């Protein structure tokens, strides 16, 4: 797998890109409440967290809609 990814002619597909968007969105989306909970004094769901969550949702949405585009080069 890694050998294929690192080959001279490998290029990311729309599905790969979609997967990366979904992964990124999930990491951010889950990371925001987790990082808040880990603080000694959680400061609640402020504007920054709202923007972060919105971006995470958008990222997952983009990823999900890219997924069906399959093997077309990204």
């Amino acid at each position, binding site marked *: 797998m890694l050998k294929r*990814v*690192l*080959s*001279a*002619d*490998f*290029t*990311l597909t729309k599905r790969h*890109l979609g997967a990366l968007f979904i992964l990124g969105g999930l990491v951010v989306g889950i990371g925001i409440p987790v990082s808040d909970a880990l603080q000694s004094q959680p400061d609640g769901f402020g*504007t*920054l967290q709202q923007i972060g969550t919105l971006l995470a949702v958008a990222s997952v949405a*983009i990823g999900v*809609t*890219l997924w*069906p*585009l399959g093997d*077309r*080069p*990204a």
Partner: protein
Amino acid sequence: MTGRHTIDHDRAGRGWQWASRALFALAIALLVGHFLIYVHFAVGVMRFPFDYDQGEGFELVDTIMFSEGEWPYRNNETYPFYASNYPPLFHVILVPFAWLFGPAYWYGRLAGFVATLITAAAIGWIVLREGRHRPLAVMTGLAYLASNYIYHVGPLFRQHISMVMFETLAILVLAHVTEGQDVRRRRWTMAVGLLLLLAAGYTKQLALATCVAVFVFLFVRNPRRSIVWGVAFAGAAGLLFVWINIATGGEWWANIIAANVNEYFLQQFIDLFEQWFRLHYALVIPAGLFALYELYFDRLSLYSVWWALAVANTALSGKWGAGDSYFATAIAATCVLSGIFAARTVRGEWQFPDNYLARALARPRAFAARHRRSLLRGAGVIVPAVYVLYAASVVKMPTEGRFFGALSDVLGLESSYGDRYAFYDAAGWVPGYATIGHVPSQTDIDNGWRLVDVIRASERPVMSEEAGFSLQAERDVITNPTQLKNLYENDLFDPANLVAAIRAHEFGAIIFRAQFYPPPVLDAAYEAYYPDETIPMNGFNYEVWRPGPPAAERDALAAGLGSLGAGETATLDVSLPVEQAARWAAHALAFHNWVEPGLARQGDCYAGQAEKAASRLVAEVCPSGERATIALRGE
């Protein structure tokens, strides 16, 4: 005007074509008008011999230091308490000018102005290469120069706009680097492009987002190439970094990286983003549509990746000390993307390869295919109209002078800054937006020289919040205030030496503009100096603070104020002439939290009342030979 695909031969078609040509001509005329206003501003600022925008003088100091073979990354805790927080390339480029002309602002401002022209040319070149539409290529370059934000920061002695130039040139060079079959040529292209990227990063740290954009693009096209070149790029940048850090004894890291971790104001970013969108929406919307098109129907180009990351990077504009200039890269990328979008639209070259989204859009696509000619006619009118709309959105111009005064009267525009500046700006104002854009007057220049005379008249060094006055007086530049403040807030600056120097009156005067110093430094200045004179320059009030009496006399006043009871009188002798002593006494009362409306002249003396909580006192300052006597009577 709209390309060979859109040439119509019937009467209606000719009508549409004339309308298109007229609108293209109008758009170009308006954008050229914006450009002429920009040139007028640039020339006016280049002739101004002092700081026009806060911080310019320190970039000149960095240039002078490099011209003398010195690093500007140094220990801030010893005299002259100065260090730079910017990478070196912009200043190094200007070193030959410093050798030839000495300390002067015009060549740094000229370099910034030329950098904007090169960036505009690069944007036009990209649009011409990708869109093959000359008028649009010209219009997109001019659109970049027409932006209120570029107008602001372009002709200044600041490194930011040169960073944008290197970024745009890197994008121009690297956009098709993955497509060539000639390996040797590809490697050379890659090397040149990455060198330009490195130049951007060593002009200003903010170029990091463009570096990320390039390597994300390369990764999407071919991960191996991205990793190999990424390692080489990081290695070169890292070696340079380590070398400078060793050469400066670690001061490079402290001043360039650690000092730039500033407080973040989310609302400042939100306000600036809203303002940016309001001014540039006519171009931002097509740019966003083009990025979405590539995401779903085509391969992602470097332009789209760059645009997305440049827009995301504007979030840093919420940092303390940041502002509208942080949108400059996003504006360049927006001009590129919207220009390609516009060219593709007027040439009717949109392709929708078969996928589930294309199938969902089958009806509109069928409609577009049936009415292709009509739609192209419409596009030939709508596209230039969009640029007319943009030109109308970003209006800014002086509101006085023989030409601009008459023009602003005709257009019904009044100064956005009242009596402070004669300048109209459609941007309005939000926190972080620079209140500049006007051309300084001869009175501003004259008042600047008055401040230089203050420094020249002093036998001791003068601590000035702006470097220009000290440079013109050929005296030491003492402190880089915002840098000290940043370092202090990151626990990287111990102000003890500077505070001791202020308390000991080692400076003949202090010139304040915005008082962007660390709190302990300001506290020491308030305690040991007093505001003696205010000189307006360029819309700001520059306060000249002079040394109060020696520490023992200041302490005596503080002790007297602390122990004064009702009916008691405290008298102290101060080594200042009566007029200065009265000013210092009024300031000292305020410093010790006594509210006083000012000491009024009464014969040879000055007197007034002051209150603090339930206490009240009467202060009287009278001459005593060359000195003065202050009498405080509790009531």
